[in-house]
């Protein structure tokens, strides 16, 4: 290697033999995967400072720890007459701890997308091989995977606990799969809503607040309406109230598809799974919300990429 030291006009810039790069250059797919990986790791603070790690891991702990406690308590309960009973069904767990995925999304979606907008970093991405569509997909996929890990981890703890306690393995596996399939709807809706909000709030604090407001506000409205419908109209009618928030949509879909009682029905009334009309409407709503937010997200970035 030739090393030229040239006494330039300024001492600051040393000219130590420039080497051309003739190694491999990855294609768009691999660049996409690199951005996806960076986003996913970022949601747990990996590759960021210590401060960025505290909150996601605190949330992770606060959703996994109760699952361990449930397993521990379960060991102390003798099986009932119809065999062993789970203290909390897998499918019911996420709704119980719904504040945790909401907070995770509210803190990590702005982290993943607002900074690039706020500091005008996007032109540096878009002047590289990735298109704005690739960028949006990689970010969204990274956030969704992070959120998915957060909500799936406690269910796995409970599942393994149940197997150790010799619950029937076939039954438990089916329940776990059903819960995970249902969670796909929740994660999809959450991710799209959260990322869309973050993409229009370059100020990160504002994005965090807006996501919390939208998720918790809609959840309160939905449970309130469900309670009203359940009390004054009919129990099956309460399912329609669930249309107001992603959590209750998820819960209703789960009840509709797998026949579990929705968690949010008022405790006094025996819960009923939504009927066919309500169930299909909830499914359609989940798909529509996800698709609509994704479209809006693409439109938003299309505009940003050209300005």
């Amino acid at each position: 290697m030739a090393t030229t030291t040239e006494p330039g006009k300024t001492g600051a810039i040393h000219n130590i033999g420039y080497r051309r790069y003739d190694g491999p250059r990855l294609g768009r797919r691999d660049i996409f995967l690199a951005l996806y990986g960076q986003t996913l790791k970022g949601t747990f603070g990996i590759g960021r400072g210590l401060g960025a790690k505290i909150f996601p891991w605190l949330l992770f702990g606060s959703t996994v720890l109760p699952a361990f406690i449930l397993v521990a308590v379960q060991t102390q309960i003798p099986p009932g007459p119809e065999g062993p009973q789970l203290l909390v069904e897998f499918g019911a767990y996420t709704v119980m701890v719904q504040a945790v995925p909401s907070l995770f999304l509210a803190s990590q979606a702005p982290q993943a997308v607002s900074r690039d907008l706020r500091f005008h970093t996007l032109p540096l991405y878009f002047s590289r091989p990735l298109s704005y569509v690739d960028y949006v997909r990689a970010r969204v996929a990274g956030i969704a995977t992070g959120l998915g890990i957060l909500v799936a981890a406690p269910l796995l703890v409970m599942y393994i606990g149940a197997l150790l306690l010799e619950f029937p393995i076939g039954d438990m596996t089916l329940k776990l799969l059903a819960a995970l399939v249902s969670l796909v709807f929740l994660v999809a809706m959450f991710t799209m809503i959260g990322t869309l909000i973050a993409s229009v709030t370059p100020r990160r604090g504002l994005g965090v607040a807006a996501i919390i407001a939208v998720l918790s506000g809609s959840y309160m409205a939905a449970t309130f309406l469900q309670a009203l419908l359940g009390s004054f109209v009919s129990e099956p009618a309460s399912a329609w109230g669930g249309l107001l928030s992603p959590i209750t949509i998820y819960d209703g879909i789960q009840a509709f598809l797998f026949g579990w009682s929705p968690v949010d029905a008022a405790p006094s009334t025996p819960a009923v799974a939504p009927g066919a009309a309500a169930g299909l409407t909830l499914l359609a709503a989940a798909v529509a919300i996800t698709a609509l937010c994704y479209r809006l997200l693409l439109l938003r970035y299309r505009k940003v990429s050209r300005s």
Partner: protein
Amino acid sequence: MSTISIQGLTKRYPRVTALEGLSVEVPEGVCGLVGANGAGKSTLIKILLGLTPATSGTATVLGDDIHTAATAIRRNIGYMPEHDCLPPDASAAEFVMHLARMSGLPVDAARQRTADTLRHVGMYEERYRPMGGYSTGMKQRVKLAQALVHDPRMVFLDEPTNGLDPTGRDEMLDLIRKVHTRFGISVLVTSHLLGELERTSDHVVVIDGGRLLRSESTGNLTSQTHTLVLEVLDPAGGTDATETARKALAERDLSPRASGDLLYVPVTGPDTFDLIRDTVSAQGLGLVRLQRDRHRIAEIFGEPAAREGSAGDGDDH
């Protein structure tokens, strides 16, 4: 050989026309793209990168068509935007490393090239500190480094000297020169100031209001637009010395222009200097000063009438 070839490129925004039928060939080496605010420099770069679509017209960058091969173009090019684009909480090392990966370098190569490139732009220990604390000069170097990190065939640098003090500007201009001479990378660099790019560029393209004013090798441009400035004095104490000299010079087929006590005479050939000196002394006047007027952008942009003239000149020569 041209690196960039532009034919009839037009870009209309709802209210303004940023580029108007621009056709120009950019040769290899360092090419300066000069124009006043709003001339369309940044718009041109964004179109060449496929960041914004052209309203009409075509262009090729390193042989790739902007309409059909934008991804290939973006692989070959490094881009340094004019505005701030650095997240203050990231360090230069992690930021440039991430962008190296976004350009398609595998992890190890990205790390190696990040270290090398930051060193080449003169960033050492400070590369590990958050960029929020950097001076403007350091920020501009990091912006340049991210444009170079994937070893592009060509870089587009949009106002790299923006906001720099004179020393910082000189350092940046030297660095840009080296990007071509030492690294072998062609450069398209924009500026408001022709004088600034004169030193750095092999070729200069001047645009104004989205139209081509001229496209010349730097040598040609400076000799053609080179103007001598002179000041005369009547030893006998006459007060119309400047006017006398102006008339005399005009009779010798020079085109002097008076401005206060100064006369500006465009250089038309190698003997212009001698001709002025002889003409003035033949009038019995003393030359207080006769020197090259370091032309500023204003001279080329001139009044609208003068502008037409110089655009015509550019095509003739």
